[in-house]
Every structure is written in structure tokens, then in C-alpha cells.
């Protein structure tokens, strides 16, 4: 059909001057964008502005709601619960992101090198956790960690040792780290793998003729060429981790006492808004978190922009 359209002799439909056509088409462009734009305004711009507005007020037991300007923000950024939460997600990201990148990049590189039926099967299986809701993934791992019906205690018991309790206060950080890595490594691996597949194989041939080893090809050709994909993943992981909520919220029930209700900023905002009905402070925390994420990601992209980013 496409060939047909392109080669058919041009019909002699009378048309206005070219300029008029272009302007008319500009309106058509807006018409295509408009439905999304409406949703964007209703469900992104409005809630953000509304959160900003709400965050400028404070509801007191006596005297009702009053305008307090930035008091909620001053309160948030001096509130140890909020600051600890921010610190927690930053430390968590600092450990998680390199780990996740290392796992997904190595798996992708292995899959790029090994072309067997088993490798194809592995690719599918490693991706599978992405299809699992975070809640169910957290539940599944919670079962595995559990002392009453999980296998970890059992396996260590076979060697006469006591297994680590990944639901305890000391180790739950690693318990969460494992769940998130398990959940997302496969998705990131597929993105990296697809980028690797997009590299022109003649580059490898040329490098081999020049005497490059497999390692040199990996480090000097493959990794630099997939830098945009790696950057995209980094940005996603950063945005995702800073708004950490589902996994700790679910594990909270299983890990009695090990996970406080304000572990992450998002959990704190949820607690303030829905458990304490403190919508003004909850909004301030949400907005502050959104701003922190935005600034972090923006700074990150600014620093790395030379390497070619997906937003440039």
C-alpha cells in the first residue's frame, strides 16, 4: 500500500497556497496533541499546583486552617523523620543502582555473546519478574525470608548454621535490595540487550582484525556504544528508587517492627495524609519529594549530558 501511494501519479486536486496549508496543518498538530494535553493539565499540572497550594496552609486543632507560607517546608526539611527517609532512599539508590546496573549489564553482555537455545530461554526467564506486580514480588520474597515457612533457615540449618533473618531490623535493607534487584534487573537487561543487538557487527570484525580481544571489544566498543541505553536506565532507576513505597509497605506486615511506617519519604507522606489526615503536611512532603527527585535527575542529566542523553 505504501509503495502504491508513493508512486501513484499526483492527483490534480486543487490546493490553496502552500503557506495556508502549513498553517492549517499547525492546527491539525494541536488537534492531535490536545487530548493528551487536556489529561496532562487535569492530572499532572493541576495536582502539582494544588499540592503546592495545599502545602502553604496548616490545619491546627484550634483556629482552623491558616496560611503559613513555607512553614510546612521548613518543618519538613528540619523533620528528622523526613530527612531520615530522604537519607534512606539516597543510600538505598547508591547501593542499588550500581548493583542493578552491574547485574543487568553483565547478563546482557553474556546473552549477546552466547547464542544458544538455553540463552534465549534464560533471557525470557530473567525478564519474567518484570511482569510481576511489585506487591506480589515483595510478598513472594517475604515468604522466602520468613522464619516460619521460608527455605533460607532450612538451607542454613542443613549445614548446622543459623540463616540470616532478612526481615530483621539490621538486614531488611538487604532484603529490600534483593527484591528490587530481582524485580527490575531483567527489564533493564532487555533494554541493554536490545541496544547491543543494534550495534553493527562489522565493527567487531574490524576490531578483531586489528587484534582486539573479546574483553577489549566489550570495554572499548560495546559499552561506549550503548551509553545512551545505560543512561536511560540510570535515570529510570533513580526516579523509581527515590519514590520507593510498595515493597517496604508490604514487607512491613511480615517484618514486625523492622520497617517503620516512615522508612521512605513516600511512606511518610502516605502516613501523614491517610493515617493522620494531615493533608497539608502530606502534600508538602509529596511536593518536596517531587522537587528533590526532579532536581537530582536534572542535575544528573546535566552532568552527563556530554555522553548523549535521551532528553537532548
Amino acid at each position, binding site marked *: *500500500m505504501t509503495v502504491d*501511494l*508513493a508512486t501513484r501519479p499526483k*492527483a490534480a*486536486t486543487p490546493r490553496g497556497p502552500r503557506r495556508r496549508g502549513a498553517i492549517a*496543518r499547525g492546527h*491539525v*498538530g494541536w*488537534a*492531535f*496533541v490536545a*487530548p*493528551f494535553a487536556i*489529561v*496532562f493539565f*487535569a*492530572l*499532572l499540572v*493541576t*495536582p*502539582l499546583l*494544588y*499540592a503546592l497550594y*495545599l502545602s502553604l496552609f496548616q490545619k491546627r486543632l484550634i483556629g482552623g486552617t491558616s496560611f503559613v507560607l513555607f512553614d510546612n517546608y521548613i518543618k519538613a526539611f528540619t523533620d528528622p523523620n523526613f530527612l531520615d527517609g530522604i537519607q534512606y532512599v539516597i543510600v538505598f539508590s547508591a547501593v542499588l543502582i550500581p548493583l542493578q546496573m552491574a547485574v543487568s549489564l553483565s547478563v546482557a553482555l*553474556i*546473552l549477546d555473546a*552466547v547464542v544458544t537455545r*538455553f*540463552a534465549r530461554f534464560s533471557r525470557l*526467564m530473567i525478564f*519474567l519478574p518484570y*511482569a510481576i506486580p511489585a*506487591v*506480589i514480588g515483595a510478598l*513472594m520474597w517475604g*515468604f*522466602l525470608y520468613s522464619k*516460619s*515457612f521460608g*527455605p533460607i533457615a532450612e538451607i542454613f540449618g542443613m549445614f548446622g548454621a543459623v540463616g540470616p533473618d532478612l526481615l530483621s531490623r539490621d538486614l531488611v535493607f538487604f532484603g529490600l535490595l534483593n527484591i528490587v534487584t530481582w524485580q527490575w534487573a531483567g527489564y533493564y537487561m*532487555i*533494554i541493554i540487550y536490545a*541496544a547491543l543487538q*543494534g550495534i553493527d557487527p562489522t565493527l567487531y570484525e574490524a576490531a578483531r582484525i586489528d587484534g582486539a580481544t573479546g574483553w577489549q571489544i566489550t570495554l572499548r566498543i560495546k559499552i561506549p556504544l550503548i551509553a*545512551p*541505553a545505560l543512561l536511560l536506565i540510570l535515570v529510570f532507576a533513580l526516579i523509581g528508587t527515590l*519514590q520507593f*513505597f510498595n515493597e517496604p*509497605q508490604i514487607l512491613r*506486615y*511480615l517484618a514486625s517492627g523492622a520497617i517503620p511506617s516512615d522508612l521512605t519519604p513516600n511512606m511518610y507522606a502516605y502516613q501523614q495524609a491517610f493515617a493522620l489526615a494531615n493533608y497539608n503536611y*502530606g*502534600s508538602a512532603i*509529596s511536593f518536596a*519529594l*517531587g522537587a528533590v*527527585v*526532579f532536581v537530582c535527575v536534572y542535575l544528573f542529566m546535566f552532568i552527563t549530558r556530554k555522553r548523549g542523553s*535521551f*532528553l537532548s
Partner: protein
Amino acid sequence: MTTLTDSGRAARRRHLPLQVLLGFLVVYFLVPFWWVIVNSSKDAAGLFGGGSSLWFAEDIDYWGNLVDLFTYQNGIYVRWLLNSALYAFVGGIGATVLAVMAGYGFAKFRFRGRSFSFAVLLGSVMVPTTALVIPTFILFSQLGLTNTIWAVILPTLLNPFGVYLMNIYTREAVPDELLDAARVDGAGEVRTFLQVSVPLMRPAIVTVLLLSVVASWNNYFLPLAMLSDNRLFPVTVGIGMWQGIASANNAGGTSLWSVIILGSLVSVIPLVIAFLTLQKYWQGGLSIGSLK
């Protein structure tokens, strides 16, 4: 693959250590599934009885547990599955339609405010969606929309990253000359879009649809905040609630654990099947954002 040449066989042997490593990784990624498959066959006695938790107990009782799961609380589990499907499909398809149109509009038309709007769109990719949940909840509660299906579906329609993906894909995949040819032939803009552009955009459309459906099927925070009537819950919020109940009363909740474990297994089956059958679509599609 069936006819291995000598060099192919040699390559295979050379990669043996890598394949062994892959084998370990596959085990790691599959262990939670295995645990759930095995343990959803057990009753409370089998679960807590001290048998191996990685192998079946003597009584394999999938049927009994299935009956329990689908009759517990008057069969509310089925409702949760249907709710999840409704939210995922209506939200996912809606988000995809909006993203396809907007992506096409940005890619193929020059209009006033285009670059500014696109810059705003890119910035919004960085706004964490959970930061929107609380203000959206308060807005919706003033409009009387909370605790309705719209409270979950409407926010799902927003997918700025989908618009971005559609835009970069369309720029390459739909040549301007083709659109001009269609216009010269007298096709209107709508017809050009539907009959010329959409077929060329199909790989990206499938990808955006898949990503949107998965995102809304897996959604937890938004419905948790928006819904209070448990008959409107998606399966994620429902199972999360059961798990809270079971953990709260350790002794009385033991029978509930079998239901929760089997419920987790059943709830992941639809998406796992979808991913396995739609393999050829998502594997190519996920690369769109990464190739620039």
C-alpha cells in the same frame, strides 16, 4: 539450531562457563515462582508443619486451596481479578490512544508552542508519579470521584514517557513524503493518520500498550489511596489487605496463608502468559527508548 556446524559446536563449548553462570542466574530468578508453585499446594499443616519448603508435602491439595481462594469472602477474589483487568485495559488502551495521537502530533506537525510543550513534556517524565497521588486524591475527593473506578482509571491515562517513545519512533518510521503523497491524493488528516501512519507505528504502539497495561495492572499506591470499598480493589491491593490481616493475627490467620499464596500465584498468571505469547513484540519494542 538443529543442525550444528562444527564451529557452532566449538562456540557452544567455549561458552560453557558463561552458560553455567546463566544457569545459576535463572535459578535465582525463578526461585520465588518455584516456592509459590510448591507451597500453594499445601494446607496450613503442610505450610507450618516443618517439611521442606522447597518441595511438595505429602498432600497435594491445589483443588482444595483453589476452592478456598474462589469462595473466600463470597468469592471476592474473582472480582479483584476482573477489576484489575478492567483498570489495566481501559486505562492502558486509553493511555496508548492519547500517547499515539500526541506522539504523532509532536513528530509530524510544526505548530505554535510545539517546542515549549515538548520541553514541558520531557520535564514531566522526571516527575515521580507517586508525588501526584496525594494531591490527586484530595482533588478527586472534592469532585466526589474517590472510591469509584474512575479514581483509578483516569490517572492511568497519563503517560508522558509513552508520548516521548511514540514521538521518537514516529519521526523515523513515518516519512514526511509519504504523508504529503497521501494528502495530495486527497486523504484528510484523519484518514492519513489512521491508514498511512498508524500501520507504520505499530511496533511502538504495541510497546506503549504493553508498558501501560503492565504499569496499571501492577499499580498499588494509587488504588490503595483512592479506594476504600474492597469490592473495587484490584488484585494487588486485595492480596495486600489479606496479607495484612493474616500477619496481624498470627494464630487465627494460618488458614488464610494458603489462600494468599495461591492467590499470588493465580494473579501473576495472566501477565506471565501475555509476556510469553507477545515475546516478539516487546523484545524489539523495548529498545525504542534506548537507541535514540
